């Protein structure tokens, strides 16, 4: 999926370049927090790992084989910031050294494969971990779903970039269908391999899996063999009842949203809704302008080029819920982090003054 030069026009290439630069700058700051001064060697080695693991071929059937893309895997194993950084470095080196992916398309490639894949994968993963019971199989299952979602999400992002700056006017529906169709298949493979790999790492070094940090049982200190475990020096994370109920609310909300979006819209009548019908009857809509997003692949809540209106509506609904959920979770996490960080500057201020 490495985009070559000339595939996306110059303005969009420049804009995505700026976006990618901003994302990498954020990731640099975040990775320093995730890894402190170990960032350079560790992120470098993880980048080398991503680079090498893309060469590991997984036979599918009848002589064909696929390989891992690694965005979701890196996000779950080392955290989102380091993952964005590693994938970006891999893409940069592939572009400069191996001429894989154009230099002017570097921004497009980093935005698409580095940022979107990683963020969608990590967002989905985190959201699922909140919902699922806090046990090890949940991590594997969540990584499966995260990888499964991340690959078609990258395909959608590519379609969007193509819609903005594609140099050939292939109809967007066709691009979307082709990209999404192929990448759903790729995503299934990616999901299976990612889940198996995360499971393999969990079995040996669960402490290394960034996404499973909260699940590792705290070490048991024993003073002499056979004696009962020493009292816990640090109180283990207390299972807050509020968290529990929040999870239940969230789960119920998600299920309801999915049922509404996918199921109900499947059975909903395809006739226009009340206001649209009234407007049409009264001739009100003769002058209404076309919506700006009319040509978008999800316009009118239908996935273009999917012929069955009902399946199409349902699919568009589910995609919409997914996107909304991801965006909502992102906002929620940002707000929560802000709130968690808010008191620190005040607390640090006197300390800084005394130095």
């Amino acid at each position, binding site marked *: 999926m490495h985009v070559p030069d*000339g595939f996306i026009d110059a303005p969009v290439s420049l804009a995505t370049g700026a976006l990618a630069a901003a994302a990498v700058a954020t990731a*640099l700051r975040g990775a320093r927090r995730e890894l402190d001064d170990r960032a350079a060697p560790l992120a*470098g*080695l993880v980048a080398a790992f991503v680079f090498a693991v893309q060469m590991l071929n997984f036979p599918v059937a009848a002589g064909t084989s696929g390989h891992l893309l690694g965005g979701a895997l890196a996000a779950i194993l080392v955290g989102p910031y380091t993952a964005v950084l590693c994938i970006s470095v891999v893409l940069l080196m592939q572009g400069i050294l191996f001429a894989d992916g154009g230099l002017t398309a570097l921004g497009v490639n980093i935005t698409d494969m580095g940022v979107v894949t990683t963020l969608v994968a990590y967002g989905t993963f985190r959201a699922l971990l909140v919902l699922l019971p806090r046990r090890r199989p949940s991590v594997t299952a969540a990584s499966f779903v995260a990888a499964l979602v991340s690959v078609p999400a990258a395909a959608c992002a590519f379609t969007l970039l193509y819609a903005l700056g594609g140099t050939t006017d*292939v109809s967007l529906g066709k691009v979307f269908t082709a990209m999404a169709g192929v990448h759903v298949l790729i995503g299934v493979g990616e999901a299976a391999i990612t889940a*198996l790999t995360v499971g393999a790492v969990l*079995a040996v070094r669960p402490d290394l899996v960034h996404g499973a940090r909260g699940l590792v049982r705290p070490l048991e200190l024993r003073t002499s063999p056979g004696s009962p475990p020493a009292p816990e020096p640090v109180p283990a994370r207390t299972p807050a009842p509020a968290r529990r109920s929040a999870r239940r609310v969230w789960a119920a909300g998600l299920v309801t949203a999915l049922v509404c979006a996918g199921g109900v819209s499947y059975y909903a009548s395809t006739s226009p809704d009340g206001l649209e019908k009234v407007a049409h009857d009264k001739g009100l809509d003769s002058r209404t302008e076309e919506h700006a997003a009319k040509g978008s692949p999800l316009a009118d809540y239908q996935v273009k080029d999917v012929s069955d209106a009902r399946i199409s509506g349902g699919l568009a609904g589910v995609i919409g819920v997914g996107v909304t959920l991801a965006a909502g979770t992102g906002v929620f996490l940002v707000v929560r982090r802000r709130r968690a960080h808010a008191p620190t500057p005040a607390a640090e201020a006197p300390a800084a003054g005394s130095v």
Partner: protein
Amino acid sequence: MGAGHASHRLYRPGRSPVHALPPHCKILAVLGFVLVVVSTPRTAVWAFALYAALLAAVAGTARIPAALLLRRLLIEVPFVAFAVLMPFVAEGERVRVLGLALSEPGLWGAWNVLAKGTLGVAASVLLAASTELRALLLGLQRLRLPPLLVQIASFMIRYGDVVTDELRRMRVARASRGFRARGVRHWGVLARTAGTLFIRSYERGERVHLAMLSRGYAGTMPVIDEVTATRAQWARAAALPVAAVAVCAGGWAYAAG
């Protein structure tokens, strides 16, 4: 560990004027060239031939054999396949070519991607073939890429071979125990390989960090050799993008008139 280094395959040592240029000049020249190529109107077909001639002149000066250049162009094949599909799926007026109804904008689009993509790949290949890996990283650092990013990239390059070699040894170990991956059933074994590879890479990273600390690492790498460029070297490096700009201006004039 007796591993051959991938840099041997990418870099072709030499003493040509192109090899002698400072790396950051070369990186900027290639980037400028590719930018100019991408912004050329696609209808000016002759302009792309001139660009190719410019690159051929650079390859000749650097004494890089055409066979190497052509072989490394193969990396582009997946997108060639995509470009070939374009005339069949694109919208617009149909023209008959060899008895097939093809879309005219699609044909132009395919030509656009093929020409610009190939020129971009060729320029990158020339850069990598005439510049040492370490020099490229120094050049990136000189171009004010964040130092942490350059460090990560240099660790990736330095240990890429080691990690790839570990993967190769694991493959040999699997094969010598009679394992051959034949289908989806064997994914578990391969995924365990990937998991082991991750653990080994991460632990190696921790060891490397400790080794660095014991040698006095405090967050930044010492800059031993600062690369600098004289005005004459800048001028020589600028020859390629400046010539390309002239061709590009001609191309726009041709497209307009």
